[in-house]
């Protein structure tokens, strides 16, 4: 398997005033492989999104090295990054009058000149993404009229149309009902089976265990563990991370009781 992203002794967190830092995690070393569906799991506020933003270069790493296909993140321009990673974020975009089709077409912006028109290939990529996500009937509706589940599918189609080897998603299941979540996970797994590498932060533990190939567990104490779901359950890592009071993770039933 190809190594797409290498992370070495990475520290995430925020720089505060007067040279102080708020450290969230340190010494993360892990690799992202091609075709992997990775879930970043951890309690609320532990720093899942911060890790994602650090990997994207939106916020600087406090320490350590991130490299994409052998090139250090620092040496990759914003423009080049757009051909490597596409994203689905939690930003709400409700106050604009764009059709679903126009939203998806933004994905091709990295590939067309500032005054250019979309090429045959651009239209082809959009069409494939629409087919795979099954949103053809939404194309001519205004984006803000869609349900939360539909919006998320559209944003995933948009990420697919960007034609990047990596797709990062921040809490893709937020705001979506249970059947919708399972549906979405099936879709993401199908996409990863076509060779895309997917990294998603997720707070729904049961869903992550069911669908992810690999889990990155982020602990409140700054701990970091990675492995396949089965191993992590057997080692008791899930219990360590999430058990509180009367609510405990049952490893046989694979859910909280």
């Amino acid at each position, binding site marked *: 398997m190809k190594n797409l992203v290498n992370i070495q002794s990475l520290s995430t967190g925020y720089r505060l005033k007067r040279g102080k830092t708020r450290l969230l995690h340190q010494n993360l070393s892990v690799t992202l492989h091609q075709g992997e569906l990775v879930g970043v799991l951890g309690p609320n506020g532990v720093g899942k999104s911060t890790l994602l933003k650090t990997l994207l270069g939106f916020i600087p790493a406090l320490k350590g090295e991130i490299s994409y296909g052998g090139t250090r993140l620092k040496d990759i321009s*914003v*423009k080049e990054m*757009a051909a490597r990673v596409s994203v689905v974020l939690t930003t709400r975009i409700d106050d604009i009058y764009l059709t679903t089709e126009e939203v998806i077409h*933004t994905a091709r*912006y990295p590939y067309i000149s500032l005054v250019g028109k979309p090429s045959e290939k651009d239209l082809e990529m959009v069409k494939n993404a629409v087919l795979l996500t099954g949103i053809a009937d939404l194309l001519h509706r205004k984006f803000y009229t869609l349900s939360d589940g539909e919006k998320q599918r559209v944003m995933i189609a948009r990420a697919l149309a960007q034609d990047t080897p990596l797709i990062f998603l921040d809490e893709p299941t937020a705001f979506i009902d249970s059947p919708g979540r399972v549906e979405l996970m099936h879709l993401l797994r199908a996409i990863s089976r076509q060779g895309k590498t997917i990294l998603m932060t997720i707070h729904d533990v049961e869903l992550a265990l069911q669908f992810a190939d690999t889990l990155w567990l982020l602990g409140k104490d700054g701990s970091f563990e990675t492995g396949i779901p089965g191993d992590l359950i057997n080692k008791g890592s899930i219990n360590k991370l999430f058990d509180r009071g009367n609510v405990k993770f049952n490893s046989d039933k694979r859910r909280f009781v």
Partner: protein
Amino acid sequence: MTIASKKSFLTVSILFLIMGVVFLSVANLWLGSVTISWGDVLAAVFNRPASPQTNIIIWEYRMPQVFTAIAVGMGLSVAGLLLQTVFRNPLAGPSVLGISSGASLGVALVVLAGSAFGMDVLQSAMMLNDMAVVVAAFAGALVVMAIILYVSGRIGNVVTVLIIGIMLGYAVSAIVGVLQFFSGAEELHAYILWGLGSFAKNSLVRSEVVLMVTLLLVFFTWFFTLPLNAMLLGESYARSLGFDLKKYNTLILLLAGLLIALGTAFTGPIAFIGLAVPHLARAWFNTSNHKILIPATLLLGANLALFCNIIARLPGLDTSLPINVVTSMIGAPVVIWVIVKRSKIKVA
């Protein structure tokens, strides 16, 4: 609507707006304190023999107003659109960045400072149309713009830039206030007249220059269609699509700032057009896509400015109201209507 009918709606609307500019321009040439027949208007426009008096009225008084109104209507409107998208704020407009306040300070320094410091200055009435006022306004606007661009180049966060712009506007207005307090009645009157705005301050040559430079700047906005659309999705998405926002924000603010500085220097601060027209364009064409919004905003802006200039000259027809009175009376209801409409969308 099907795609085909959407396309034809677009074509018809754009054609209608282009015709609107032509029609309102002719109406601007025709209406005024001196009655000129349609035939003579057209004769003067196409350089056919008309009476020398008609030629002078058309070419030295009315045509400069038409050119200025078109230029400033387009420039301020598209600047408002750029600012609303960059700041993701429906209330952003030419006045928020403090650029028009900067222009006011420049003018205040020229018109008021002399009398405020107890010096004898030029006749204020003469100064109103003086090139010194234009230069001072432009310089004042550029100074504020330079500060804004410096901040936006260093800080990626647009909200910070917006707040600094607004605060800068207040600070500059305070200095103007001090100058007003200490200046004489006549200079004060001249300054206030400048602040009420007018499309009738420019000679033919000057109005032609304003129109040419505006068209040149407007041409450059076309290159920002894609980053502006990407910005609609939010800063993070725009960045993930390869647009370095520090760079694009700064370039777009530079473009908007130049348009505002140009318009304000040659007409005084014009209220509401820059704020209201982008909203009108969005409502008319029911889209946020800049590929459509930029031309729509340009055409609507030219139409509205020409229309306001006619209204300003209507009462009695021998004197004209300050243009700001008219733009505010038309612009304010538009903004209210848009805000109410938006709140309905949120509920649905």
